[in-house]
C-alpha cells in the first residue's frame, strides 16, 4: 500500500476558536495508522508553502480519518480554508506510534493543548483499560472533546492556566500531586503529548518517580521519512529523527 495518496475533504469543522477537525477520505485504501503515527499534508497546490505539514492521527472511522489541528501559522491558516470536495496530497502514516502498554499496566494519558489530538486515538485503542487522562489548557474555551472522552470511559482530570475550568494551574503539577498521594495502585505507564515545556517538566517528574512513559515529540520537518535529517532531537543515544525513530520516544531518552 502506497503511503503517497490523495484524499478528499469530507468536512473541515471549526470546533472552537482556531481549532478545526478535518475529516478526510483517502482516494485509495491506505494502511491503518496506529495512535502516535502522523501524516504529512500538502496544504497548497503552488510552491508556497513548499513543505508538507505533519499532523497526528486523531481518529480513524471506517477508512476515513480525522486530523485535529490548531491554526498557528501560514500552512494551518490555508488548511482551515479548505472546503468539502477539495483534494489534498498526503504522505503517511508515518513514524513510530505509541507502544501498547503491558497487559496489567494502568494507563495514564497526559495532554497539553492541541496535544489532545493524538491522545484521542490512543485512548480509543486502550479504552478497555479505562485510562486516566490529565488534560491541561490555557482556559475553559480551549477544552475539547470532554464528552467524547467521558463516553469512552476515560477518567478525566482537567486543569486550566486561569482556573476557568477544572483545577487552576499546570497539568504536570496536578499529575504530580496525584502520584505523590500514591493514588496509583498498580504499575502504570504514561503517554504524553503537548508543548515542549510540558514534556520537559514531565521528564523531571518521570525521573523523580521512576515513571515508565512515552512522549510524542515535535520538530520542524521536511521529508517525514527519515532522509533529510532535519527533524532530529537530542537523545542519550545521539541525534534521533522525530519522523523515523519517533515521534514517540521513551521519556527518559530525551535530553532537554
Amino acid at each position, binding site marked *: 500500500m502506497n503511503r503517497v495518496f490523495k484524499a478528499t475533504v469530507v468536512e473541515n469543522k471549526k470546533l472552537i476558536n482556531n481549532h478545526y477537525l478535518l475529516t478526510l477520505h483517502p482516494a485509495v485504501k491506505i494502511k491503518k495508522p496506529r495512535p502516535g503515527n502522523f501524516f504529512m499534508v500538502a496544504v497548497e497546490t503552488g510552491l508556497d508553502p*513548499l*513543505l508538507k505539514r505533519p499532523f497526528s492521527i486523531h481518529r480513524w472511522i471506517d477508512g476515513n480519518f480525522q486530523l485535529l489541528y490548531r491554526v498557528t501559522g501560514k500552512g494551518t491558516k490555508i488548511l482551515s480554508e479548505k472546503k468539502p470536495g477539495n483534494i489534498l496530497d498526503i504522505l503517511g502514516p508515518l513514524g513510530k506510534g505509541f507502544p501498547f502498554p503491558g497487559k496489567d499496566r494502568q494507563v495514564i494519558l497526559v495532554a497539553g493543548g492541541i496535544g489532545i489530538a493524538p491522545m484521542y486515538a490512543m485512548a480509543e485503542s486502550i479504552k478497555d483499560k479505562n485510562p486516566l487522562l490529565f488534560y491541561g489548557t490555557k482556559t475553559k474555551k480551549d477544552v475539547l472533546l470532554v464528552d467524547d472522552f467521558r463516553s469512552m470511559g476515560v477518567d478525566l482530570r482537567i486543569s486550566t492556566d486561569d482556573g476557568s475550568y477544572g483545577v487552576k494551574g499546570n497539568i504536570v503539577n496536578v499529575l504530580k500531586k496525584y502520584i505523590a498521594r500514591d493514588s496509583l495502585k498498580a504499575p502504570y505507564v504514561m503517554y504524553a503529548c503537548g508543548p515542549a515545556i510540558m514534556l520537559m517538566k514531565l521528564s523531571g517528574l518521570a525521573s523523580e518517580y521512576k515513571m515508565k512513559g512515552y512522549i510524542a515529540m515535535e520538530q520542524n520537518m521536511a521529508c517525514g521519512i*527519515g532522509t533529510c535529517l532535519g527533524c*532530529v532531537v537530542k537523545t542519550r543515544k545521539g541525534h534521533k529523527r522525530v519522523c523515523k525513530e519517533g515521534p514517540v520516544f521513551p521519556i527518559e531518552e530525551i535530553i532537554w
Partner: protein
Amino acid sequence: MANKPNLKVNIGKLTLKNPVMSASGTFGYGDEYAEFVDLSTLGAIVVKGLSLKPKQGNPPPRIAETPSGMLNAIGLQNIGIDNFIKKKMPFLRTCKTKVIVNFFGDSIDEYVKAAEKLSSVDGIDALEMNISCPNKQEGWIVFGTDPKVTHKVVSAVRSAAKLPLIVKLSPNVTDISYMAQVAEDAGADALSLINTLTGMAIDVQSRKPKLANITGGLSGPAIKPVALRMVWECFRKVHIPIIGMGGIITSDDAIEFILAGASAVAVGTANFIYPGVTSDIVRGIRTYMSSEGITSITDLTGAIKCRTNRL
C-alpha cells in the same frame, strides 16, 4: 513511429541510463526511497555526504521553511564511510542503478584518505567531492570559495581517486565559471552545481535565528533561476560535463537545466515534497523528447536558442 528516445548520457567515463539522479543529502542512502520510487529507473543515486568518521551534525532546529524554499543546517551528519560500506552498500549494489558517493573532509588529508578508501569499494561508480557546504566553519568554506585552495584540494583528491571525480561547486562566489575552470584544471571529470545558497531566517517573536546554526543552505524552487544561470555560465567556459541542480521539481525544470548546458541533473528538495518525483521526471523527459522528436538527450545539452554575442 519514431524510435524510443535515447536518454543515455556520459559523465566522463561514467555512463548513466538517463540523466536524472538524486541530489546528495536529500535521498538518504537510497533505502528509504525504495518504497516510493523504482530505483532502477534512475540514472544514479547520489548518497548523503560521507566523512571518514561518523558525524553528529548540528544541533536542532536544523530546518526552516522559506518562500518556495527551505533552509537546512544539518551540518553533514553522517554514519561515516565504514558504516556506509558495511550497512548501506549491500543494498545499493542491488539497485540496478549507478551509485555516486558524495564525500568531504575537514582537511586536504581527510579528503584524500576518504577518496582512497571509497575508490576501492565494489559497487561505487563515481565520487562527488563536496567542497561547498555552507554549514561549515569559515576555515572550511575556503575549499569552495578560494580558487587556490580549491585547486589544491581537487588536485590532491584527483591523484588519490581511482573513480570518476565530480566536484560540487558553491554558488556563493562572485564568478562560478572561474571556479569551474579551476576545478577542471585541477583534474575534475565533471562538475555538480549548485550547492545551496547561504541564507538565514529569524523568528520575530523570540528574536532568535530559526536555525540553531544561525545560517543555513537555501534550496528548492526559490533558487532555480540562480542555479540555471550558473549552469549556463559554466557551460560556456568548461569542457567537462555539468550536473545541474537547484530547485528542480518537474521534468520541465530538468529540461531547462539541460538546455542551459547540463549533461545530467540532480533532484534534491523536491524529494521531500513528492517522494516519487525522480522517476516522474525521467518519464516526463521521455515524453518531452518524443513529442519534440528528439532522438538523443545529448542533443538537448546546451541547446538553448539565444543570441550568442553575449559571452
